[in-house]
């Protein structure tokens, strides 16, 4: 198939309560055209044929839009390269003979389920705490285009909405903070007229849930913005800070 020979150092953990350890796997016949996940598929195929337990890792769409794939590769979320998810990382980024470290997202709020697969339900719970708008769906739905929205606002809201909730921001942050995710989800709605009704409550509730989940506190290192596959900007974090401050001092 290919001509690259690699050594993988993979985190193996047989369940949430297992201590876990790093296991070395040689992988031969790696093509530079493979994605990182396809390379893991090849390794898993070998493991299954040998009667060993395959490595559990998260993946779904494999085209960079679902946010399911994760992996901390050689010390970086989604591996080397910018603006990509792990499924968009190709083996041409590595050289024959390389040793590659593969670890799961490390966060108190993202417990390991097995090997490299983590439970990112904390993001769902933050979203559910306030990441929605109330719209009339009882037969007299308002046409979205009936509301005029300035183009720059629409663009900014869309930039925030490109967040796929993969968790690279948390994985990368030296503090394990989920501010970039939460800020994107708050910004996306607070910039639009449809999001005004719950605006204050949203910022308060989503931050409260974020804190409850055990994420760390943002210290503005900016690492999340650089590792984010969708390039979500730190300006959304500043917006969340403003939204939250305004909501905190004016709530009744």
């Amino acid at each position, binding site marked *: 198939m290919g001509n690259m020979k690699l050594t993988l150092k993979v985190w193996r953990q047989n369940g949430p309560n297992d201590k876990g350890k790093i296991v070395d796997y040689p992988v031969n016949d790696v093509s530079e055209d493979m994605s990182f996940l396809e390379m893991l598929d090849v390794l898993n195929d070998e493991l299954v044929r040998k009667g060993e337990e395959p490595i559990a890792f998260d993946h779904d769409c494999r085209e960079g839009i679902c946010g399911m794939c994760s992996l901390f590769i050689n010390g970086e979320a989604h591996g080397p390269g910018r603006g990509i998810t792990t499924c968009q990382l190709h083996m041409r980024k590595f050289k024959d003979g390389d040793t590659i470290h593969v670890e799961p997202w490390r*966060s108190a709020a993202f417990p390991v389920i097995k090997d490299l697969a983590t439970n990112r339900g904390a993001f769902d719970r933050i979203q559910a705490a306030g990441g929605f708008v109330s719209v009339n769906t009882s037969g007299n739905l308002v046409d979205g285009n009936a509301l005029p929205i300035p183009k720059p606002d629409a663009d900014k809201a869309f930039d925030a909405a490109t967040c796929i909730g993969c968790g690279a921001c948390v994985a990368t942050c*030296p503090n394990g903070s989920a501010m970039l995710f939460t800020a994107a989800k708050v910004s996306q709605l607070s910039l639009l007229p449809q999001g005004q009704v719950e605006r204050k409550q949203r910022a308060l509730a989503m931050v409260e849930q974020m804190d409850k989940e055990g994420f*760390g506190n943002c*210290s503005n290192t900016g*690492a999340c913005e650089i590792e984010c596959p969708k390039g979500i900007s730190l300006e959304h974090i500043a917006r*969340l*800070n403003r939204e939250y401050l305004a909501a905190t001092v004016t709530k009744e």
Partner: protein
Amino acid sequence: MARQGLFGSSLVKKFWMALTGLFLISFLVVHVTLNSFIFFNDGGVTFNTGAEFMAKNPIIRTMEVVLFIGLIAHIVDGLILWSQNRAARPVRYAVEKGGANRTWYSASMGILGTLILFFLIMHLWHFWVKSRITGLHHYGLDAEGQENLYGAMLEVFQNPFVVVLYVLGCFSLFWHLLHGFKSAFQSLGLNHKRYNPIIAFLGTAFSIVVPTLFALMPIAIYLKWIQ
């Protein structure tokens, strides 16, 4: 864990960190301005006039108490944030390439702050304790007949070891400010495309100018550039 409300949530702790940080920055402006009077090289007369004003003025003395409260709040808040941030990643990465996405000093604010605290304890012992508690009689009066805090500076900075510690303290302050100044604005939500370059420039300029001026004081006295 109760982490909601005006004093508990992660964001509010960051607001306090930013506000106390900016307050301490405003103190640095006053401190570096007054201390730079020693560069008049007039035997410390101008500096001693300033020092006497700071020691006697009731408003300044009140602000001194507020300053200590602000400093302690900054330290306590920082320690809480630091311990929560450590708890947020109970299992560390075996391999972490932090240099790829952040500056080392932005991720080392806790250790830099601790170094500054050690420096501050030594610094307060050298000057604040003498000027406010034990008295400056030992240094006599200056040419204008004022209390001679400048005399204390001349004595303390004869020790090369102390001079080196002061310069290292200034380095810690430089790195701490280089991230802290900009970071405070971001934590307060003050991020705007038009003003970000100005904040970044001011932050970098402040971080360089203030610690450099402070570091020059012990160096200038030790090398007898000023008498």
